């Protein structure tokens, strides 16, 4: 009798805890739906051709867009890719191919720890590296900050992808008399290429969504700019400035700009997912 009731009690606890754990899902799901729904419902009304192509207008004037901010983000992320992608991917290949020694594990540990360093701190570093020698804020400084942010995460992602390549492929190539370097480049890395492209897309998506390191490196700009040594507007800084302003019109612009940003980041994420899936199918 006593045993039976304790068994029922244990069953109840088991079911109860399963339900509690399932309910935790709500904690992740409600904020997600809330953010997405509010950005879409508050931002969709402001979408127009002019929003993408025009310069911002001063307070009180209707219309205007964020064209310069959109171009600025693309420009700086592009510049950051030129520096960050080769270094990040290269460090990843090093870790996968030669990273088993003491130096390798030090580099790996450093990459892991650096990927958790706050982006605002990287902003100060880019300020010291570029803004102080130049004497003024610039697109280059913003791009350097974004590039430094890309390197550690990209290195770890690339390493894992290169390590997924089966050893038999490498051995087959070596057995045919192909030198080590050629085996690495045209067999191992080529096989992992799809995955590396995916990792790069995710790194670009992350960089496009960064705000903090741009605040005092690229600053902002009211006009079009493609000069690497001039301050540059960006989508994220525009959202921030619009959001903390006291004007209702600017608030709705912040929502619309957020919608644009989420679409850009979302497309990059979807593209990487599609690539991953097709790669997996190809491997089978």
């Amino acid at each position, binding site marked *: 009798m006593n045993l039976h009731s304790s068994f029922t009690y244990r069953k109840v*606890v*088991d079911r109860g*805890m399963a339900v*509690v*754990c*399932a*309910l*935790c*899902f709500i*904690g*992740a799901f409600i904020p997600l739906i*809330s*953010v997405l729904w*509010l950005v879409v419902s508050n931002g969709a009304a402001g979408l127009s051709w002019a929003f993408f192509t025009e310069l911002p207008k001063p307070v009180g004037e209707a219309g205007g867009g964020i064209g310069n901010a959109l171009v600025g983000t693309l420009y700086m992320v592009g510049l950051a890719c030129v520096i960050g992608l080769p*270094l990040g991917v*290269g*460090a990843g290949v*090093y870790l996968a191919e*030669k990273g088993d020694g003491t*130096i*390798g594990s*030090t*580099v790996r540990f*450093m*990459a*892991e*720890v*650096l990927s*958790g*360093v*706050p*982006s*605002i*701190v*990287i902003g*100060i*570093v880019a*300020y010291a*590296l570029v803004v102080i020698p130049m004497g003024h804020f610039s697109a280059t400084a913003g791009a350097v900050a974004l590039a430094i942010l890309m390197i550690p995460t990209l*290195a770890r992602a690339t390493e894992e992808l290169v390590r997924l390549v089966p050893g038999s492929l490498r051995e087959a190539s*070596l057995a045919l*008399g192909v*030198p*080590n*370097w050629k085996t690495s480049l045209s067999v191992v890395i080529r096989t992992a290429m799809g995955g590396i492209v995916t990792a790069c897309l995710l790194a670009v998506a992350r960089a*496009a*969504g960064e*705000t*903090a390191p741009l*605040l*005092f490196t690229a*600053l902002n700009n009211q006009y079009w700019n493609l000069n690497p040594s001039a301050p540059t507007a960006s989508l*994220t800084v525009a*959202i*921030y400035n619009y*959001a*903390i302003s006291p004007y209702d019109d600017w*608030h709705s612009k912040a929502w619309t700009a*957020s919608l644009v*940003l989420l679409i850009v980041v979302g497309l990059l994420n979807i593209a990487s997912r599609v690539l991953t899936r097709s790669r997996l199918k190809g491997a089978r």
Partner: protein
Amino acid sequence: MADAAASSVAPAEAEAGHPGPGNLGDRIFNGTLWALGIMVLVVAGLIVLNLALVARPLAKEHSLWGFITSREWNPIEDHFGALPFLYGTLVTSAVSIILAVPVAIGLGLFITQFAPPKLGRVLTIPVELLAAIPSVVYGLWGLFIVVPWLRESIQPWLGKHFGWLPIFTGPPIGLGYLAAGAILAVMILPTVVAVSVEVMKTTPEANREAALALGATKWEAVMMAVIPYSRAGILGAVLLGLGRALGETMAVTMVIGNSPDISLSLFAPGYSLPAVIANEFAEATSNVHVGALAGLGLILFATTFLLNAAARVLVTAVQKGPSRVKG
């Protein structure tokens, strides 16, 4: 360059085309890779060096202890004390950990233990999406949705029923420690869930099956096999989440209220380390002011560096566990 050199040499000298340590192509390739790997260490060095360089003017004016313990932040009179920012960062991070960790562990257990494997995989998608949303969008959402909601429903309710606790006193403003902590909780949730799931998955199936075979319910198996095995890794996940919470800038800047005070009440507006750097760095004119902000950045860097290092050690130790057990 490496390609051209090696292929032009290869036909002439049969030796050069063969695999081996003396191969020119190999030497160039290895050297390039090594240099790229070392770049990560160089970047780490650059970060520390440049932070210290910018912070140097501060060291001439203040001692480290005086900087950390002073409550007064007055750029006009060149007086800089970090205490309100340290306090705000700690309080908001603590709130976020208290809110996020139970949910994250529950969710991790559900994904790895209770849900069918297929459902578990589907459930990780919304968590990943949560991680992909840019910080400034969270800030916007916090400013216009979470803050009014806290001001109109949550804070009056907390004040009415738990007002005897000093942390729930004062006027319900909305902007403040509680708002920042709540938004941070949402932002660190994906990190804690993802790492927890990773370490929970490393629990050897045999341990769990042994518990089940002895008549344990699923929940008892979780408590007896999964939790003890992955405890250190879950602590690592929490530390990683804490590291993210400490350094999160934009969302916090937009909802914490930006007032350099120290208040016991969570309803009060405060300030955090990243927020003050974000707000004042571009407009700081004196070297000492820039130095003080970089000094705050250095504190932030050192703290997150140590937290992440500790977290990595814990997580790697748990992940390496199974091979030792199996072997």
